[in-house]
């Protein structure tokens, strides 16, 4: 209850956003907005959850896509198992979703326990290595995962509570709700005392430890939660493509997510989503004119990193903060003189 009161403003915004998203999805008959937005939901959750590590905690993970892929695979494999759907019946989809989130979380506990103790560069390396390891397991364990072909034959989606995920409208609304709920969870996390502890660790982990913060544990909790949310992104993409593919665990997927964060802004909560939208549109527009999309995107990244040196929303935020700080400083001077 208390939570609802404290976050009422954010909750209202989230509700309004959901209404708009649903209206777009149901109001436009053409499939493009639904497809586009569903892809954004998946990529957005990957990027935003990764930004919990990069932007909020200062942990540059280069292997976050592994959890995204794992979520998709757990979800897809469970629903493809006739034993599972047979036993669970109508509860199959929600249970598979929960299993994907919890299962990925457990995997993240193991990986995180090893990784979060290391410094920046080694952390990046090790997360990358574990990601490539998972990738190679997915490719080689053909009997279970279908290898490079991914999960074949579609993912069955038994109806539950009147929701039929085989129907594109139902599926879209379901994904939109999942997306908004996850974003809200991350919002609460980042604005809670825990979220500010993450910022302490990012700014100065040693000092945080001397203030009684259990840095390792906090990092690990953040790692696990963000991995679980990435898993939801994977579930959305698995629903959307009716399959799961090893490329989701490939390092380029992580690289792309990192760029989305950078492009949109890593110090602003919604920055990564803006980055995801911008990158997708950029990609699609460039694709209409040339097959050399990579060179264009590479040049854009160079420009953003070397020219702007920060993301779009970071630019706005820094400008606003500087203005505000200058005003406060001026007030202080006047106050002292007067």
């Amino acid at each position, binding site marked *: 209850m208390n939570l609802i009161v404290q976050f009422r403003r954010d909750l209202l915004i989230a509700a309004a956003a959901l209404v708009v998203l649903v209206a777009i999805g149901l109001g436009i008959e053409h499939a493009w907005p639904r497809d586009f937005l569903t892809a954004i939901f998946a990529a957005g959750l990957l990027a935003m959850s990764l930004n919990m590590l990069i932007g909020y905690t200062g942990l540059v993970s280069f292997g976050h896509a592994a959890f995204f892929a794992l979520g998709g695979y757990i979800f897809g494999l469970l629903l493809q198992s006739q034993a599972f759907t047979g036993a669970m019946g109508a509860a199959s989809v929600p249970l598979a979703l929960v299993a994907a989130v919890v299962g990925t979380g457990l995997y993240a506990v193991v990986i995180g326990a090893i990784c979060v103790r290391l410094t920046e560069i080694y952390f990046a390396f090790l997360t990358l290595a574990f990601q490539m390891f998972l990738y190679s397991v997915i490719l080689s364990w*053909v009997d279970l995962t279908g290898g*490079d072909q991914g999960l*074949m034959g579609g993912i069955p989606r038994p109806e539950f509570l009147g929701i039929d995920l085989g129907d594109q*409208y*139902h599926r879209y609304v379901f994904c939109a709700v999942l997306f908004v709920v996850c974003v809200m969870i991350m919002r609460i996390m980042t604005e809670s005392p825990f979220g500010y502890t993450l910022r302490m660790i990012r700014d100065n982990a040693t000092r945080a430890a001397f203030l009684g913060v259990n840095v390792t544990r906090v990092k690990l909790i953040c790692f696990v939660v963000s991995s679980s949310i990435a898993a939801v992104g994977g579930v959305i*993409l698995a629903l959307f493509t009716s399959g799961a593919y090893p490329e989701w665990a490939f390092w380029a997927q992580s690289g792309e997510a990192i760029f989305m964060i950078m492009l949109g802004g890593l110090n602003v909560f919604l920055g990564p989503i803006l980055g995801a939208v911008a990158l997708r549109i950029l990609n699609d527009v460039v694709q209409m004119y040339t097959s050399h999309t990579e060179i264009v995107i590479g040049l854009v990244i160079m420009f953003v990193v070397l020219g702007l040196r920060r993301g779009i929303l970071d630019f706005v935020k820094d400008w606003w903060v500087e203005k505000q700080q200058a005003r406060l400083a001026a007030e202080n001077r006047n106050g002292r003189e007067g």
Partner: protein
Amino acid sequence: MKKSYSSPRRGLDRRTVLKGAAAAAAVGTGITGFPAYLKAANTPIKIGVPTILSGRVAILGESSVSAINNEIRKINEAGGIEGRTLEAVFRDSRGKPDEAARMTRDLVNNEGCEIILDAEASGASFAVNEVVRDMQQFCIHTNSETSSLTADPKNQVDWVFRSCRQGIHDAVGGGLVAAKVVKEKGLKKWATISPDYAYGRANTEEFMEYVKLFAPETEVITETWPKLFQPDYTENVTALLNAQPEVLYSCLWGGDLVAFFDQASLYGLFDQFTAFAVNLGDYPVLTAIKSRPAGVYSGSRYHKDIPDTPENEAWYESYMANSDVLPTNWAWQNAAAVNFVAEALKKTGGDADTMKMAEATAGLTIDSPFGVDGTLTIREEDHTLVNYMVGYSKTIVDEPYVVGFDQTAWSEIYKHEADWKKRNGYA
């Protein structure tokens, strides 16, 4: 977009339209100039082709593009179909399944493509298969040889077809030829080197299964599985040397096969064993391998002399005149796909509606230079291509690179395919 979604919807009501939001979205998309569906409707029938145009496989994708464009050019120059011309839109998926899925959706949603030719390798084909199933979009798979794509009822979709060779057909053919060769030479000990992914494993397993069936004394003494696109095969080559087999099978392909041959020849591997390489027969592979060995058995891919007919010769000339890459296995399969589409469109009167096209394509037989008797058929029961050239040749160092084509009779293939389907619970 003429096509509308016919799937029944329950629960959520479409009439809960919030026009404001819709308008806002429309304005938003208008500003970005995107998506293209807002542009004026196109008169040509657009064919969307997700394929691979970068990486080690790019040559296959590029030859597919050349072949498709060349066939479309011929059709359009002859006046199109029912007054409508054809136009192909290509997208580079880089061979990634999720990219291929996304691009297929984009091709339909944004580019207004009414027909999809899925020119992806196996991995991505399964992804595209699910997309077109979901979108109820007419589609022909043109490159995936993985048998289960059309053989497994789980993967079958009423409006999806395949216009390319299939692993099981090649395996029967390969098994027959290989059995004959090893029996003649008295060879028993086999080794395999194939890429470690679904295609490589399934293909190798099927091939060896038929070799064993036709030559029961066969024994596989070692298997080595390099990763797909692995740069270095030295470890695998030496593993083969150590095992000292008498015969070698490989379904490596493209650049991987080239690298393997160059590295293996350093060790003189092909002087020591008899070798079968199903994917060696493609022109770009044969020409790229600098240390081209003689006497390796190669599966039929595309060759201007197989079948040795004037039609095939003419197709080769026409292709070469309009392409800057050599023809491949993928090239003829995509050309065949365009021919099938054109033929089906003639039957529907130029209507690209999914269900009408599906009905027209099932069981369709066309005249084609790639068929055994000048025709190719898409079988009605499982929507897959039959009656194309199956068999093995032997390589020689210089042009025409392969000689002595040993053709497998389709009656033989049908018989074993039916057994195989039963064994796998597909039929």
